[in-house]
């Protein structure tokens, strides 16, 4: 141990340069799983805005569209209006609980496989291998002088980075407008400035975060590893180096010379070489480990070559670590997954999902909101009747024009007419044509006999006249002058 004098500050630097990470290519089941997930997630991201979905002539035909200008969110069959934003909130809660579920069951699987930072970093690291070669070639090139070869390779590599980054930014904006139209507009300079700005910002962030920051985002910037650490317990799966089996490390030759003196780890450093965050898993669980399991693939490959059983590095819970250290056997994965905590998370998660689906199926697409005009609260009419004015908002949330009726109940002798009508034609029920997918604001006049309570509750209701008779109603007041006024 160093003496305190050595630690007085001279030797400890305030700032440290990043240590380059040049992960080696590896093959194995986890690597193939990662390939599959990368393919699926990237395909979903790039292709989704191009899926068409016929909604008739009054709504866009893009399957997934966040129409900020018109305040509509389309997702296949589901159309969300701004006042129904709680569905989005529900989705976010589901996403949160889903992360709890995944974390408590399989640890940092989100970090290791599906986080965009991981997926794009993985993609960019493959670009590195494509242009510069595998780990050793990359290290040589990075440490070598700036020759023509290095310059041209760097140029090519950064151009590929930029292309991917630009494509990533370009795909993002497609979720917010009709994708084919926006593509044409974008290349002809007709798109909104915000579209170009968004693409520029996302191109820059993808280029910088995926091309250069990489694992530093996970280690220094992302709050999620810290939160996740708090959510894991002794039954969560971790990528674990089984030190009781591997230590002390020694090469195959040494082990042959001294049978029984060495553990299974031959200290080949392959687990370090393939790690995309540049850590040594043999130092134990650490914040830099995103549990991508590539070291498991690497180690299993080496173990197969030297004829030792696989799983020196493996997914393992802290409970299993204790029991295996004591000579017992680990529990099968299925038992690790099916335990009260994960089942509880799964129960909550699916209950929210089922409740949302149920309410989506039950919601009426005709909505009524009434506001009583306050200035004046009531109007004395010349024939002695009293009129109250209301602002009626009718939401037709279907993608077709509709005919609806508006009626009142609980207000004897009341007649109603709209701002476009006249009292002479007033009736107890009015019919209205509502344009597709719109809010219609109507000035509603209601006249009732002057004799009656000063304040009276009654109901205004609306219902469809074209097939779907469901509707909505609202209770509101009718005011008259106090006696003596």
């Amino acid at each position, binding site marked *: 141990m160093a003496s305190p004098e050595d*630690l*007085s500050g001279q030797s400890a630097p305030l700032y*440290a*340069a990043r240590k380059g990470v040049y992960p080696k290519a590896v093959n194995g089941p986890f690597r193939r799983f990662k390939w599959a997930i990368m393919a699926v997630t990237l395909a979903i991201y790039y292709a989704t805005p191009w899926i068409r979905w016929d909604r008739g002539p009054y709504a866009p035909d893009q399957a997934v569209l966040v129409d900020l200008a018109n305040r509509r969110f389309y997702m296949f069959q589901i159309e969300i209006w701004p006042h129904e934003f709680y569905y989005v909130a529900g989705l976010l809660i589901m996403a949160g609980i889903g992360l709890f579920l995944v974390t408590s069951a399989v640890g940092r699987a989100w970090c290791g496989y599906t986080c965009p930072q991981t997926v794009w970093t993985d993609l960019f690291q493959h670009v590195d291998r494509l242009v510069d070669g595998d780990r050793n070639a990359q290290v040589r090139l990075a440490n070598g002088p700036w020759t023509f070869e290095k310059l041209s390779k760097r140029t090519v590599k950064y151009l590929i980075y930029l292309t991917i980054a630009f494509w990533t930014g370009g795909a993002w904006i497609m979720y917010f407008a009709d994708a084919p139209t926006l593509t044409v507009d974008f290349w002809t300079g007709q798109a909104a400035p915000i579209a170009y700005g968004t693409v520029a910002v996302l191109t820059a962030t993808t280029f910088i975060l995926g091309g250069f920051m990489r694992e530093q985002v996970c280690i220094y910037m992302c709050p999620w590893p810290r939160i996740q650490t708090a959510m894991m317990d002794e039954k969560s799966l971790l990528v674990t180096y089984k030190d009781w089996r591997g230590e002390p490390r020694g090469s195959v030759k040494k082990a042959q010379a001294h049978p029984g003196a060495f553990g299974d780890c031959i200290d080949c450093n392959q687990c370090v070489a393939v790690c995309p965050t540049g850590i040594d898993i043999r130092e134990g669980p650490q914040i830099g480990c995103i549990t991508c399991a590539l070291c498991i693939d690497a180690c299993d490959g080496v173990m197969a070559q030297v004829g030792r059983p696989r799983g020196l590095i493996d997914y393992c819970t802290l409970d299993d670590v204790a029991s295996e250290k004591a000579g017992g056997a680990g529990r099968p994965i299925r038992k690790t997954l099916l335990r009260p905590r994960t089942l509880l998370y799964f129960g909550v998660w699916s209950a929210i999902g089922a409740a949302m689906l149920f309410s989506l199926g039950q919601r009426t697409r005709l909505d009524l909101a009434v506001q009583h005009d306050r200035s*004046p609260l009531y109007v*004395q009419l010349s024939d002695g009747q009293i009129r109250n004015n209301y602002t009626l908002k009718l939401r037709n949330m279907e993608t077709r024009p509709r005919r609806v009726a508006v009626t009142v109940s609980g207000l004897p002798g009341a007649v109603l007419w709209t701002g476009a009508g006249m*009292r002479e034609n007033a009736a107890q029920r009015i*019919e*209205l044509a509502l344009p597709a997918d719109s809010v219609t604001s109507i000035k509603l006049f209601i006249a009732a006999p*002057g004799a009656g309570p000063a304040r009276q509750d009654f109901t205004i209701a609306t219902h469809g006249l074209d097939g779907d008779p469901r509707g909505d109603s609202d209770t509101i007041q009718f005011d008259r002058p106090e006696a003596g006024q």
Partner: protein
Amino acid sequence: MAEHKRIDEATGTTTVGHEWDGIEELNTPLPRWWLWTFYATIVWGLAYVVLYPAWPMVNRATEGVLGWSSRGDLVKEMAADAKRRAPTVNAIAATALADLPAQPQLMQAAVQGGGAAFRVHCVQCHGAGGAGVKNLYPSLTDDDWLWGGDLASIEYTVTHGIRNPDHKDTRTSLMPAFGRDGILDAAQIGDVVSFVRVISRQEKASAASARGAALFADNCAVCHGAGGQGGRQFGAPKLTDAIWLYGGDRDSLTATVNQPRNGVMPRWGGRLDPVTIKMLSAYVYSLGGGEKGLAPVAEGTGADGQP
């Protein structure tokens, strides 16, 4: 504290020497890119100070090379909004007032624009929403009009005002002060008031009201009509309905006959442009008491249309 500094075994990093209940802080060096980010924010800050208003001086802040100001932004936004509204305003200007209700969208725009103008110029007397003020200013939302409630009449009233002595087109009339000027004595006024309360169905017919009927025919019917149905060319209110600007009880009516108010309204033709007056008229018309004029008005169709 320095004597507590040591190297942490697990990480190989120096601790800073503090210790709280066994928890120590590692002296991990900052990543270098963080330092560069810090420098970049300084450069950004310097550029910002040069380009935008920044340093507070005695009277005002430094102006910045770009000359940006939030007032300048407001001017630009107002200009952009005026440009956005121009087509609608022009369309309203080009449409005859009587034709507006037949075009629901244009009518709605006019009502909204009129509402904005109303809140600036009219609410002081007529109240928010045109509710009026009892004993002072008439309500614009009811179905009783002194000078007419169709679009053309409203526009004329707004343009020329009421009882502006210096303006030849203004609406004008003068109810005599029957009591103050001694045209009728107190008993006669009592009789006339009785008659008015009978025709407005507030009292039963009596000897007084019978005497009042004759007085009414001689003194009042020329403006208020033989049956008290009112006369709009004189702004003479209908006396048979339930609406009383200055009160319909005996005391109020007596006071009115004694000494009428003869309310005044400024003329807006000289102050507001014709489009604003048109929109104001549409707004007042839409408050609930609007009457059809002589020209037939087509029924609105579409969103706000009533069958």
